[in-house]
């Protein structure tokens, strides 16, 4: 069930990207280059997304825990350090150069168009290379991948907890 839900989220996300125009790199560039033929459409993308996400997030976080996981894995860092800021600049430059970012690149890569495929391969290499370098040469930790039990271990843990409760009745 959980896999179906996660898969559907990916599906919905892809539809959203395509409908919004984010999969049209020229539209992205025309939004970013506001001195040119400015197309403000993408402002509406972020506006719509943030609005809906904010509401959904309030609902989600008002519960004890996610339905299929032990805990919420939200970023805990509160400060921007210099490497992060530099990373944001680098990301911005890459994004502004062609108008692709990770999500649209993935969605467009299956269309038979070689451009997003090339971008995706290069992006994957960049991500992997950064991880490899960061681990060996920088003291800075990699972006947090885990903060608790994985989703699919959740069912196992619940079963264990239930067993535990059975043996410790007051």
């Amino acid at each position, binding site marked *: 069930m959980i896999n179906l839900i996660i898969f559907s989220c990916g599906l919905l996300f892809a539809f959203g990207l395509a409908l919004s125009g984010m999969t049209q790199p020229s539209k992205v560039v025309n939004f970013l280059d506001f001195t040119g033929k400015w197309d403000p459409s993408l402002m509406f993308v972020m506006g719509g997304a943030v609005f809906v996400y904010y509401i959904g997030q309030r609902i989600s976080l008002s519960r004890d825990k996610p339905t299929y996981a032990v805990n919420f894995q939200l970023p805990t860092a509160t400060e921007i350090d210099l490497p992060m800021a530099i990373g944001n600049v680098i990301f911005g430059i890459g994004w502004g150069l062609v108008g692709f970012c990770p*999500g649209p690149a993935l969605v467009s*890569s299956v269309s038979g168009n070689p451009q997003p495929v090339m971008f995706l391969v290069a992006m994957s290499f960049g991500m992997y290379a950064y991880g490899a370098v960061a681990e060996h040469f920088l003291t800075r930790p990699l972006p947090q991948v885990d903060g608790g039990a994985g989703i699919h271990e959740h069912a196992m843990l619940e079963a264990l907890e239930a067993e535990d409760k059975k043996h410790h009745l007051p």
Partner: protein
Amino acid sequence: MENFTPIESLSGGVLIGLASAILLFFTGRIAGISGIFGGILQAKHGETQWRVVFVAGLLVGGLLVNFFRPDMLQFQMDRTNFGIIAAGLLVGIGARMGNGCTSGHGVCGIGRLAPRSMMAVVIFMTAAAATAYVVNHLLGGHL
């Protein structure tokens, strides 16, 4: 203003926000694509399967869009292969170093009212705008 598509863009944004919210509700995870995809490359135990499933959803979604509305995915950017590859490398490195991308910081981060993400968005938007300007106006729209 050219090709202004407020309805489609807003609707698409709503779907993106909805998908992200549903993911958070059921799994407690942030729908930051660079984190999801990049996390697969890091291959940590217990953190790979859900990511693969989500990315599979993205890809199948792409296939469906390509089937019913190919116009949404068809484009030809006036960029050399070199330019595209360079951009990909920068986005890959930058998204990991910067702890997120447009979905992670822009949607989920701002949605959390996280100052760190808001700052990140300001930084990468500025860099992206400056870059787009340079490419369009100083390089004649080619790269």
